[in-house]
């Protein structure tokens, strides 16, 4: 039982860790100062949420794994994040759209998780639900501004939709471990969050003059540990210090 919840929290923690790492890669490279501040700030929120989830998962499984063991010392197949969050940053339009897709899912997720029968998870959710509100507003405003912007920005936004929409189905995957946790009321059912996600995306796409594409072949595999090639490159950078200098600390 504890293991099912631990595994589900690790998968969720992986989503946050990997997306946080992707966002942090923008630090020093953003198109303007405000965005150079906003993306590391949001990365910090995501990393903080990942730390909470990993620490609690480590306690639940009782094998003595810490947040650092989970973040830095697993191999690629042991990471269970969805593929969407590991997609490369691409241009600014790609990054903002990826952020919107994820935040539009996490907002109703954390809202529902405030009612979790596990009080620790409910506590994390109460904190996170306020932070995610900023993320969704920030990404949503950019998607609208770029989609309904110049010819060039609209083209880039449409390219991003084409490249990333195929990864959004995986947000709603229910693993066996998650099903156990949903039954116990520990975690919300991802499937139940789909209407809310759809509503947010439709509303923002309407304003951004973007079309929601038909997806013939949704891409998934991350929840089973099957990742894209880019993920290996991301991990090599993320894990470098702990691999090269084991046990290194600040």
């Amino acid at each position, binding site marked *: 039982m504890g293991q099912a919840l631990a595994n589900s929290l690790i998968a969720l923690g992986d989503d946050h860790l990997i997306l946080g790492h992707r966002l942090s890669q923008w630090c020093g490279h953003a198109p303007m100062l405000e965005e150079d501040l906003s993306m590391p700030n949001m990365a910090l929120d995501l990393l903080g949420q990942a730390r*909470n989830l990993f620490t609690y998962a480590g306690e639940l499984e009782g094998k003595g794994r810490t947040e650092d063991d989970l973040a830095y010392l697993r191999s690629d197949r042991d990471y269970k994040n969805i593929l969407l969050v590991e997609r490369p940053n691409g241009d600014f339009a790609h990054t903002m759209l990826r952020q919107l897709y994820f935040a539009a899912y996490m907002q109703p997720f954390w809202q529902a998780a405030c009612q979790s029968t596990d009080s*620790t998870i409910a506590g994390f959710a109460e904190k996170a639900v306020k932070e995610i509100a900023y993320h969704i507003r920030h990404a949503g405003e950019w998607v609208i501004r770029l989609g309904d912007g110049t010819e060039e920005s609209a083209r880039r936004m449409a390219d991003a939709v084409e490249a990333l929409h195929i990864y959004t189905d995986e947000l709603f995957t229910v693993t066996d471990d998650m099903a156990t946790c949903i039954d116990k009321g520990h975690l919300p059912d991802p499937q139940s969050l789909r209407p809310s996600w759809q509503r947010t995306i439709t509303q923002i796409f309407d304003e951004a003059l973007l079309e929601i594409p038909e997806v013939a072949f949704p891409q998934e595999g991350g929840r089973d540990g099957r990742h894209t090639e880019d993920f290996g490159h991301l991990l090599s950078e993320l894990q470098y210090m702990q691999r090269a200098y084991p046990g290194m600390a600040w």
Partner: protein
Amino acid sequence: MVATAKLSKLASAATTEFEQARAWAAAAAVPDPEVPCVTVADLGILRSVELVNGEAVARVSPTYSGCPAVLAIELAVEAALLEAGFAARVERVFSPAWTTDWVTQEGREKLKAYGIAPPQEQSNSKLALFGETTVNCPRCDSSQTTKISEFGSTPCKAHYQCDICAEPFDYFKCL
């Protein structure tokens, strides 16, 4: 005999109360590492200090999930209690989640004097989070200010500039 027992009980209750107040005072004086003009008590993140079996247990709420100061604050509170002569332990509490509504009146005044516009009150309403808010300049009190960036030097602050005195300043965001 009965009266003596009662008296000694009263005296020990008074001692506990006194020791508890002393522990609170020691922990409450710890400054925030990133905004040192205010203490952890001013910010409302120090929730309680209780004596449990001779140990001072401080409960601290993080401001943001990813706030890098969380660990530094917890260590500083523990150190302050140790220095005051208590065996000490710090517990991190997530629920109820910290809100800027818990920043005390004194804390708001200290922030303003330091050049940081204090958070608007009533942050829990959606209106405060997303409605149009007026942020007054901490230098000249003008209400004519412009938001430069929603994100600032720490997760809890946004950048503003005063249209009247041209002062650039931080605004402590509502949460």
